């Protein structure tokens, strides 16, 4: 089977999906695709050579006459290249060797389809068109012996279903990966770290905190401390849905990790009721530097950093510049 490779940078290869030799063998067995089928298909190769071009032309005429599939072939270069690949695939179906390389190629198709957003309904529809086109020429070729035509068609159908199964599984896997990445991106966006002054970061936490999000928050904050050389962080928890002992421990961990990097964390927005409840649960909040609200937190942070905020006495919105 294919050698080990990194999952993040290219198409999922067989082993990542558990599509190893054993799995392919089980699929073939379930489809009852045997050596005789491979032999039958091999015998069709000469005839396939003859019919390849007309079948491919028909197939693409079909694509181009439907709006949804037409969209993929606006570029004539793309169309030519894909037709060529399709012809290769067509001939491959009757080459008689359906091992590791064959499978690897089928899996790549699924990933490509996911990437270009070709929905399964069109892909399956196309395969159906294929099978019907082939059925016709098999009928012509074996006009004198219709049983042979039927047998060949059944073998081909088994192989085509193997292909569809493999391509669909990779499509689904690629889709899951895309969705997981999108979810992660959303999670990251939901915990921004803002630099509001030099050496001062604001981390507003909103919503539900589970251990995965806590991990992201902590990691993001520590990176931001390094990047901004922050000395003080105001971590505002006003918007945190529920602060139970688990969440409190996550917050404590974030505070302690920041401290290891030399940053002081001021926790703002922790209501007295919640604080009392946590203390009652045995959580040691003495390590936490807490302030009632966000404004208070920022003011304290500025004091620590040596800022002194002075109101200039000018009316807000007036055109007069401060002295």
């Amino acid at each position, binding site marked *: 089977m294919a050698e*080990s490779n*990194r*999952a*993040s940078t290219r198409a*999922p290869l067989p*082993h*990542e*999906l*558990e599509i*190893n030799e054993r799995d392919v063998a089980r699929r073939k067995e379930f489809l009852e695709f045997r050596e005789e089928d491979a032999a039958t298909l091999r015998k069709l190769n000469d005839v396939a050579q003859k019919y390849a071009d007309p079948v491919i032309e028909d197939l693409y005429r079909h694509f181009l006459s439907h709006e949804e599939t037409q969209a993929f072939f606006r570029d004539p270069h793309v169309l030519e290249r894909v037709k060529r690949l399709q012809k290769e695939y067509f001939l491959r179906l009757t080459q008689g060797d359906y091992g590791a390389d064959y499978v690897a190629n089928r899996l790549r198709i699924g990933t490509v389809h996911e990437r270009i957003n070709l929905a399964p309904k069109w892909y399956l529809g196309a395969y159906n068109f294929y099978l019907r086109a082939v059925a016709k020429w098999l009928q012509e070729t074996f006009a004198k012996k219709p049983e042979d035509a039927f047998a060949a068609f059944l073998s081909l159908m088994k192989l085509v279903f193997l292909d569809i199964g493999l391509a669909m599984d990779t499509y689904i*896997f690629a889709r899951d990966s895309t969705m997981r990445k999108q979810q992660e991106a959303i999670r990251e966006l939901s915990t921004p770290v803002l630099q509001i002054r030099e050496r001062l970061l604001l981390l507003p936490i909103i919503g539900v905190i589970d251990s995965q999000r806590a991990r992201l928050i902590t*990691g993001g904050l520590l990176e931001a401390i390094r990047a901004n050389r922050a000395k003080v962080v105001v971590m505002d928890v006003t918007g945190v849905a529920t602060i139970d002992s688990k969440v409190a*421990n996550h917050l404590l961990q974030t505070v302690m990790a920041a401290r290891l990097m030399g940053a002081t964390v001021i926790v703002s927005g922790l209501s007295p009721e919640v604080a009392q409840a946590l203390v009652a649960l*045995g959580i040691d909040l003495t390590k936490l530097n807490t302030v009632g609200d966000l404004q208070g937190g920022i003011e304290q942070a500025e004091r620590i950093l040596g800022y002194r905020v002075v109101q200039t006495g000018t009316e807000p919105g007036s055109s007069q510049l401060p002295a």
Partner: protein
Amino acid sequence: MRYAPPGDEEQLMTGQAEIRVAIASDGDIVIARQKGRELAAARDFDKTEQTLIATAISEIARNIVEYANSGEITLQPVEHHGRAGILIVAHDQGPGIPDIDLAMKDGYSTGKSLGMGLPGARRLMDEFDLVSTPGKGTTITMKKWVR
């Protein structure tokens, strides 16, 4: 005596070579965790997870040096349902752990632990299994999966 959380037993080994590190002195602790980091990086763990893995290995390796004098740590790539992972097995033929529950007691929240680093290592990894027989030795099996 056995300590193991309920887990999914199905696993696929990639059949790739395992890395063995003999643990006999404190210098070996550094080697073991560096090899662990290398393998973790090869498995596509991010930097933070690489550090967690290396730290867990450090704790386990030190246990071997401190309590068993010598032992061995094996590192191996593993896979499960398309996810890459790392398998770490620490084995020694030392005196064994007489009271596993006590050793595994997580003193994290109270700041007290027996200092064996076991609950810590467990917290850093996704799967953790410990088998110890007094007089015979200890085998710790840990796994971590790429998110």
